[in-house]
C-alpha cells in the first residue's frame, strides 16, 4: 500500500523508473556483455568514438560503453554492501545507550565526535587500515558512514523510547533487549530504511571517489570510479572515457536519492516546508451585506471607518472567504472589542485593517479609511508612513513577536528612525524612554538586552512601548493577553487602559475572552463565521439578543459556577469558513433555529437603542439553556480539532487551537 503511495507522485514514478533501469543494468549487463567488455583489440587502442565503439576504447582497445554498463553491477553492489555495513554498525552503536544504560554513554560520546568529521576523511582513514582493493574499500566506506547512521539511530531510538507504550512496557518489567526488538526496532525501521536508501547514493559517490583516487577497486576488476581514473589520463584524446562513467555515477546516485526522497515524502518522514493544502468544498458566494453605516455622516473624530470588509483566500475548490462583510467605525479614544471563537475571522479582520494580510489573501472593502485616508487607494509610501506612525499593533504571542537576534532597544528605535527624522542615537534614547513609560524598570539596561532576557509580560509591555514610539491614534491588540499568565494579563490590560485615557487613543481589542473585552471596552462586536452577528454596549452584555452571544456569555464561569460539573462550552463546533450554509451560519448550533433560519441569512439590524443583531429570533427566550450549557466533555476535544482546521485555513488565526480551552483553563487557575 505504501509502495503504491510512492508510485502515485511524479517524483515517485521518475525515481522508481530510474532505479529499475539501474538495477536491471546491474543484473543483466555483466551476463549480456561481460565477455565482450573484455575483448582486447590491439588495433584500436585509446580510440575516440566510432560506429563500433560509441564512446571509444581504453588502452587495451576494450569497448568503453560496454565496460561502463558492465561496471554497473560492481559499483551498485559495492555501494549497497557498504551501506549495509554502515547501517548495521550504526544500529549497534545507536542502540548501545538503550541496552547498556549508563555504560553505553561512551558510544554516544564517540559518535558525537566522529560525526563531526566528513565521511570522505573517515573513508581515507579506514582505507589506510583496510588496504586498497574492493574489500578494503567496502569496509572503509561502510565504517565511514557508520557515525551518521549511529546518530540517526540514537535520535530515533530515544524518540520512540520516550513514548508511553515503551515506558509502560519497561515499567511492566519487560527486559531491555525485548523492548528493543519488540517495541523500538519495528518503529524505527521505516525512517532507517529511507535514510539508508539515500545513504546508498552517498556510498556510491564515495566509492567512485575512492576508486578514482586508486584506493578502491583494483585492476583487473573495474567500477565507475576506476574507469574515470583511467579515462582522466586520456582526456585530451577522448574526454568521453572519463565523462561517461561519471554520468553513470550521477544517474545511479540520483536514482537512490530520489527513491529515498520519494519514500520519505509519501511516508511523511521528513516533509519539506510548504503550505498545507486541504480539500475545501466550494462555498456559496457571500451576499455582500449593505453598508449599514453608510448613510450616517462621518464624524471628524472618526479614527477608523471600515465598510463591507471582505478577506478571501484561494482554496483548491474555489475561494474561501473567512471575513465576509464587516462594518466597523471607531471614534477617537473609543475602545471596541471583537469577540468570537477561533475561526470566526476576528484576527483576520484586525490584520486586514492593518494592511498586513499577505498573498494569497485578498482584502476587499467598500471603504477602508484610517484617519480620513483611504487605505485602499492612493500612494503606498504615504500610507506606509501614516500606518507606521499612527497605528500600533500588539500581537498575541510576545514570545515570538520580537526578533530574537536583535536587541530590544534597536527593535523599538527602528520605528522612529524609519518614519521620523531622528538620528539613530535620538531614536534609541526615545526607545529607552518609551520602555520606561511602559513601566519597565532600568530601561537603559533593558534596551541593550535581547528578547529572550525579558519575561512574557515585559515583552508584551515592550511591544506596547514599540507602538508608542510615534504618536498612535489607534492600537490594534490581537489577543494581547492570551499567551500571558493571569496575573500578568491584568498589568497589560491596565497599561492599555491608561494609555487610552491619557492620550485619547482608540483601541481595537480582539479576544476570545468575553470577560476581558467587557472589562476594557466600551462597545463589543461579536463575530461568527466572518460576520458581525451582534453589536452591543460592553456594560450591558447580559442583555444580549443573539443566541450565540448568549451562549458565549453562558460559557464564562463566575463565582457561582459549580466547579464539580463540567465547565460550559458553546455547544457544537465552529463553522468551517469553506462550508458555509445558505442560511444563518449559526443555525446548526442554535437552539432557536427553524426552517427559515436555514434558508435565509439574517442581516445586522437594530434591536433597540444601542443594540444590533443579525438574528431572526433576536431576544427570544432560549429553551433549556442550562441543559445545553453543560455540554459533554468530548465536545471540547471536538471543538479544538475544529479550531485547528479553522486556524489552518484562515492562515492568520494562530494558536487558535488553544483558545477554546483557554476559557476554561484561565478561570480555573
Amino acid at each position: 500500500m505504501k509502495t503504491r503511495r510512492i508510485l502515485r507522485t511524479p517524483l515517485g514514478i521518475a525515481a522508481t523508473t530510474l532505479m529499475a533501469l539501474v538495477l536491471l543494468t546491474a543484473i543483466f549487463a555483466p551476463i549480456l556483455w561481460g565477455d565482450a567488455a573484455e575483448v582486447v583489440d590491439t588495433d584500436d587502442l585509446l580510440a575516440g568514438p566510432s560506429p563500433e565503439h560509441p564512446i571509444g576504447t581504453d588502452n587495451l582497445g576494450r569497448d568503453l560503453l560496454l565496460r561502463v554498463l558492465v561496471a554497473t553491477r560492481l559499483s551498485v553492489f559495492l555501494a549497497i554492501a557498504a551501506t549495509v555495513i554502515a547501517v548495521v554498525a550504526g544500529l549497534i552503536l545507536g542502540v548501545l545507550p538503550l541496552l547498556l544504560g549508563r555504560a553505553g554513554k561512551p558510544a554516544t560520546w564517540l559518535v558525537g565526535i566522529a560525526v563531526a568529521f566528513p565521511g570522505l576523511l573517515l573513508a581515507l582513514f579506514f582505507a589506510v587500515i583496510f588496504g586498497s582493493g574492493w574489500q578494503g574499500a567496502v569496509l572503509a566506506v561502510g565504517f565511514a558512514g557508520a557515525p551518521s547512521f549511529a546518530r540517526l539511530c540514537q535520535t530515533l531510538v530515544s524518540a520512540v523510547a520516550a513514548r508511553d507504550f515503551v515506558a509502560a512496557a519497561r515499567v511492566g518489567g519487560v527486559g531491555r533487549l525485548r523492548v528493543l526488538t519488540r517495541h523500538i526496532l519495528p518503529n524505527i525501521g521505516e525512517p532507517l530504511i529511507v535514510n539508508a536508501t539515500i545513504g546508498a547514493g552517498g556510498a556510491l559517490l564515495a566509492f567512485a571517489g575512492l576508486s578514482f583516487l586508486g584506493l578502491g577497486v583494483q585492476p583487473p576488476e573495474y567500477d565507475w570510479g576506476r574507469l574515470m581514473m583511467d579515462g582522466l589520463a586520456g582526456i585530451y584524446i577522448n574526454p568521453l572515457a572519463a565523462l561517461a562513467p561519471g554520468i553513470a555515477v550521477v544517474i545511479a546516485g540520483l536514482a537512490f536519492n530520489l527513491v529515498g526522497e520519494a519514500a520519505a515524502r509519501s511516508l511523511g518522514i521528513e516533509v519539506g516546508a510548504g503550505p498545507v493544502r486541504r480539500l475545501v468544498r466550494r462555498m456559496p458566494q457571500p451576499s455582500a451585506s449593505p453598508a449599514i453605516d453608510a448613510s450616517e455622516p462621518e464624524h471628524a473624530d472618526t479614527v477608523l471607518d471600515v465598510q463591507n470588509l471582505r478577506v478571501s483566500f484561494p482554496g483548491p475548490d474555489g475561494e474561501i472567504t473567512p471575513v465576509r462583510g464587516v462594518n466597523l467605525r471607531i471614534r477617537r479614544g473609543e475602545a471596541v472589542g471583537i469577540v468570537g471563537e477561533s475561526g470566526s475571522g476576528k484576527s483576520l479582520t484586525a490584520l486586514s485593517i492593518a494592511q498586513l494580510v499577505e498573498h494569497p489573501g485578498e482584502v476587499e472593502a467598500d471603504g477602508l479609511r484610517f484617519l480620513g485616508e483611504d487605505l485602499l487607494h492612493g500612494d503606498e509610501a504615504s500610507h506606509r508612513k501614516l500606518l507606521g506612525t499612527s497605528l500600533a499593533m500588539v500581537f498575541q504571542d510576545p514570545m515570538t513577536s520580537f526578533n530574537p537576534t536583535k536587541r530590544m532597544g534597536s527593535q523599538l528605535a527602528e520605528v522612529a528612525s524609519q518614519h521620523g527624522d531622528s538620528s539613530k542615537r535620538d531614536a534609541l534614547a526615545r526607545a529607552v524612554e518609551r520602555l520606561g513609560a511602559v513601566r519597565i524598570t532600568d530601561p537603559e539596561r533593558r534596551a541593550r538586552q535581547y528578547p529572550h532576557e525579558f519575561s512574557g509580560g515585559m515583552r508584551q509591555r515592550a511591544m506596547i512601548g514599540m507602538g508608542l514610539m510615534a504618536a498612535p491614534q489607534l492600537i490594534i491588540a490581537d489577543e494581547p493577553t492570551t499567551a500571558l499568565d493571569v496575573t500578568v494579563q491584568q498589568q497589560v490590560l491596565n497599561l492599555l487602559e491608561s494609555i487610552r485615557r491619557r492620550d485619547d487613543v482608540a483601541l481595537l481589542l480582539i479576544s476570545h475572552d468575553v470577560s476581558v473585552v467587557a472589562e476594557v471596552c466600551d462597545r463589543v462586536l461579536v463575530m461568527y463565521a466572518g460576520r458581525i452577528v451582534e453589536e452591543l454596549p460592553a456594560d450591558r452584555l447580559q442583555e444580549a439578543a443573539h443566541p450565540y452571544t448568549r451562549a458565549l456569555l453562558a460559557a464564562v464561569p463566575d463565582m457561582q459556577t459549580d466547579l464539580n460539573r463540567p465547565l460550559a462550552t458553546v455547544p457544537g463546533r465552529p463553522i468551517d469558513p469553506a462550508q458555509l450554509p445558505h442560511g444563518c451560519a449559526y443555525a446548526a448550533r442554535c437552539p432557536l433555529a427553524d426552517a427559515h433560519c436555514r434558508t435565509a441569512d439574517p442581516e445586522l439590524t437594530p434591536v433597540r437603542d444601542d443594540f444590533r443583531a443579525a438574528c431572526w429570533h433576536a431576544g427570544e427566550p432560549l429553551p433549556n439553556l442550562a441543559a445545553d450549557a453543560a455540554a459533554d466533555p468530548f465536545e471540547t476535544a471536538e471543538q479544538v480539532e475544529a479550531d485547528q482546521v479553522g486556524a489552518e485555513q484562515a492562515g492568520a488565526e494562530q494558536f487558535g487551537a488553544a483558545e477554546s480551552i483557554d476559557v476554561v483553563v484561565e478561570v480555573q487557575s
Partner: protein
Amino acid sequence: MTAAATAPAESVRSANRPQSRWLGFTLRRGGRLLASLWVLITASFLMIHLIPGDPIRAAMGPTASAEIVESRREALGLNDPLLLQYWNYLQGLFTGDLGTSIGSQLPVIDTIAQRLPATASLAVLAFLVAILIAIPLGVAVAVATRRDRGRNLELGFTGSSVLMSSIPDFLLGVAGVWIFGVTLGWLPVAGRSGPESYIMPVLALSIGPAAVLARIVRVEMLGVLESDFVRTARAKRLPAWRIYLNHALPNAVTASLTLRGLLLSALVAGTVLVENVFAWPGLGSTIVQAIQTKDYPLVQGIVLVYGLGVLIINTVVDAILVTLDPRTTVAED
C-alpha cells in the same frame, strides 16, 4: 504594583548574562574540542597499529630482506611497548615532530608546511564562493517563491539544485578540464600557477555545496518569513529589503550555520579528490600518493592536519553561532 514586585527577581536572573554566556560556551565547547582532539590524535596514532598483518613488510614489498624490515621497524619505534610508543607520539606532537617520511626521508612537518597553503587557499576560496552564491540565491528564490508564488521558478530551482548537488565534485572537475581546459583552452588543465589556475578547482569544489546551501537558505528563509517577528517588522512598516535582509536573514542564517560547518568540513575533504583531478600540489594529492606507497608517517601527519582543520572549523562555526544568536548556549550533542 505587580510590575515592581517581579522586576527585582528578573534583574537578578539576567544579571551578567553576556559574560556567563561566553564563559559557559568556552568551558563546554573547549571541553568538547579537547575530547575531539584526543580522539583524533589517538586514532591517527592507532592507525598504523590497526592495519592487519605487518604494515612495514607490506610497505617494503615481499622482496625486502627481513633485516631491512626489522631495522625499519626499529627506526619507527614499532618494537617498543604500545604505551611507550603512544607517549613518544604525544611528545613528538608537542615538539612539532610528526616523524619522518619513509619515501622522501624528509620530516613530515616540512612536507605539510610546504603543501598546506595550496590546500587551505583552495578550501577557503571555495567556501567563500559557495557562500556568495548560495545566500543571495537562496534569499532571492525564497522571496520570489514564498506563499505559493513563482511555482515554475521553485520547480526549476529545486530541480537544478538537486541535480547540481548530486554531481560529485571530481566529475565537475573532469568536465571542467574537458570544456575549459581541453576544448576551449581558456584555463590551465592542471597545476597551481596563477590566479586563473584557481578558477576551475574552486568552482568544482563550490558548486555542489552552493546548491545544497542555497536550498537550505531558501527553506530557512521561507520559515523565518512566516514567523511572528517578521509580521511585527511588517507592522512597523519597514521597507521590504529591510525586512528581508535585516530581520529575516540573520535568523535564517543562524539556523543553517551548523549545516554550513558540516559543508565546509566536507569541502575540506573534497579537496582530496579535486586536487587529484587537477594535479594540485596540496595535501590531497600528497596523502593519496602516501597511502599508495604506504608511507605511514606521512599519512598519519596529513590525517591529523585534516582532522584538526575540521575541528577548528566546527569550533569557529559554534563561536559565530553564539555571537549571532544570543539564545544559543551550544547544545550538547
